[in-house]
């Protein structure tokens, strides 16, 4: 099968098998910033935006994404530069091995879009689909608070 998806603003022609997931297709086409942790939709490392919806890309057939917009961690800023959320994760000490981080960043992005100044409970609920073994989530929650503060202050 083949078709087109728009990834981070760039049209991408893809060839794929019917069984391929969006995660397979993204990674096979160089978007290795989207990580594979479980392939079951249970860890959150492969979170992306499909149009404006936060989804585990391992749970979406590539065919479903045809004609749609995909945004990955590197596409949060149009010029590919780090987004305030990336910087907040780095500054808060929330990045250890970093394998979960791009997915955490995507979940944070969705959370802050809906709730720019979230309570701790909202942060916990917003990241509940993202597993991390390194940090105990402590500095990740700090990072979301820091990102929220900076985004509200600087727009």
């Amino acid at each position: 099968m083949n078709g087109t998806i728009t990834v981070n603003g760039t049209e991408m022609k893809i060839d794929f098998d019917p069984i391929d997931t969006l995660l397979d297709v993204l990674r096979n086409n160089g978007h290795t910033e989207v990580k594979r942790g479980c392939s079951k939709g249970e860890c959150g490392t492969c979170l992306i935006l499909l149009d404006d919806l936060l989804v585990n890309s391992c749970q979406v057939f590539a065919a479903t994404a045809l004609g749609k917009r995909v945004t990955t961690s590197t596409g949060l800023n149009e010029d590919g530069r780090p987004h305030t959320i990336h910087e907040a994760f780095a500054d808060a000490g929330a990045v250890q091995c970093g394998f979960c981080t791009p997915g955490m960043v995507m979940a944070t992005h969705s959370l802050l879009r809906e709730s720019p100044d979230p309570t701790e409970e909202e942060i916990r609920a917003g990241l509940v689909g993202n597993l991390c073994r390194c940090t105990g989530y402590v500095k990740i929650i700090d990072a979301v608070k820091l990102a929220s503060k900076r985004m509200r202050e600087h727009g």
Partner: protein
Amino acid sequence: MADYTTIGKSVKKIDALPLALGIEPFTADYPLDSPLILKFMYSDLAHADIVSLDASRAEALDGVAGVFHFWNCPDTFYTTAGQGYPEPSAYDNRLFDHKVRFVGDRICMVAAETAEIAEEAISLIDVELDPLPALFDPELSTDPDSPRLHSDGEYMPIPVPYEPENNIAASLDIPLGDVESGMEEADFVVEHRYTTHQTSHAALEPHVVACYLNPHDRVILITATQVPFHVRRIVGRVLDIPIQRIRVIKPRIGGGFGGKQEVLLEPYAALATLRTGRPTFCEFTRSEVFVSSRTRHPMRVDFKMGVKNNGEITALVMDALMDSGAYGTHGLTVLSNAGAKVLPLFNKIPNMLFTGKSVYTNLPVGGAYRGYGATQSYFGFNQHIDMIARKLDIDFLDYCKKWHIKKGETSEIFRALGEGKEGVSQVIGSCGLGECIDVGAAAIGWKKKRGSKPSGPNGSIRGIGAAIMMQGSGIPKIDMGGASLKLNEDGSFNLFVGATDLGTGSDTILVQIAAEALKVAPEKIEILSSDTDLTPFDVGAYASSTTYISGGAVMKCALAMVDELRKVAAEALGVDALVQGSECFTDPESGKSFSYEEIGYRSFYAKNQAQLQTNASHTSDVSPPPFLAQFAEVEVDPETGIVRVVEFVSAVDCGQAINPALAEGQIEGAAVNGISYALAEQYVFNRDGRVTNAAFGRYGMYTTADMPKMQTFLIPTHDENGPYGAKSVGEIGINGPAPAIANAIFDAVGVRLYHLPMTPERVFRALQESRSEENHSA
């Protein structure tokens, strides 16, 4: 405290931003030229002989490049334990065997153009298995009627007891003093049995390896490993190829926790690449990680302590039975660390006996896991101390503060118990445990809350408990790390280390250590780590060794560079007595200075031309323990048995924290892993020995929704043995949650939990039993 410029500062982790974006490559992110995909066929029987294997239909399938099994592969015995050489683990594992020993053991492997073709090929392989009786209960392993797992010439590469004929992968017998008379001196004896369970490391990145031949026919392995140099050595031995022909590169790795201290996939990828000439790629699925990689060893620990009414413990008997699973990787050393990292903590016990066995069962394989035996042992140990203190009517913390090991003291255990041989005597050079206890107790409100049993919401009852612990910093006289450093003409440096950053931030910490010695900003140093062609040797990231051992090498190496720099500056300025300044040397007389940049240009292009480069290696005769006090406040629902941790406090003495934010991160991550281990995570087996919950969704790992309020304190001490006074911090934080929570549950509802995990069902049953006992006695 010394006036440092970089040490003790929370310098931002050097790879944090690219990792957050996702552009730092992990193993699976490296582009390979049409790699063959490797997939394993696994046993669905717990114990069986492979009577026949016919791969002809699979081999005939379009897109299949090879099928690998016992009858066409090297049959060398080895251990997957990525330890120093010779490894203190049984050589009881082959690439493939004519026998399978647990549900999930390897039968054979397919290399194919795609994963789908490989899966289809596996379905076409005809295997006849002859079932053997299976052994699931480690208590029965040495029973003469139990099946034997290993009887094909497996052996131990070091001279320690190994009895495969009795299913014993390792055993220990460490007597100190006379426990019989010690028990007789006691006024009372406390004796209990504690058990702990399998858990998964659950690093978010699965085990993964890529391999290819370079134009010089060398085997290049890119792999998610904690031990690149051990990988190189073990792959060379198993496949009988020269170490020289192998290059192992560790890119970023997505967490290890001990799970990647195993040389699991690399020999297979190298074998398939050598046989086919093609690049190969092998990535475990999450289910394979759960079942067919490694777990935390379950352990049954019996503690018996004789105590005088004045609080003195006159004798301690510890017996441990460790379930090694089907293979004995780390079977001796995890067992020995259950004593070695625990018993010295109460060093005034004159009579001790520590016995233990690691035994085979037809269950998934245990391995190294953060805490490494200490975690299993501390669960019982701290509950035992809590019981003793209660019996003496002394506050647990006061009791701990009186009897724990102090600076300037030693323990016979240090001398008696090492890694497969005698240990190494050491005197404690720093111990901030007393202050850890005080700071943690104040933070959680110990005095006010302990024993007060306040009601929580919905009929729940609150309680508070604590645990104290130590670990080590590397393996004394065994672990070695190397570093080299070279100057560039702009005054920057390249630092090369064999040390392995598994996400802990060790690359950043080693840069900070070098920057401090060189008196430059960390940004002036580019680090390259963990490449067996380009970097010096290092044993790898395990045994809480990197900051202490590899950091020691970096410090020596950087100080040697300072001497080299000084010589050039002295020559240039014509003055011998120079003072080291920031990125320069200064003549205090004239005020003239000569910068590192000037030194670089001079030595490259002008006078006495040379590449300034220094090397250093480091080992240690001692292993200074970090110390930690952890506190849990829990809410127990007596109607359901549900235990919720409300707040968790850690106060750690890791010596001088090189990077406080990264040190806190180690404790926070370990603590939540430990809480999750204590209350939720477990492997569920069916009667055939199959893991029935090998998926994140059914395993129970903690999420943001489950974690308690957390507070972490770093209590500064300075240990003369460590670089800039540093000790380790990587493992210790996982040891305290289980006993602190168990002690808090007792504080709340008066029942003891002797078995992990402390699930609602176990807590509920314990409450029911205590109620029925009360009714009987009423």
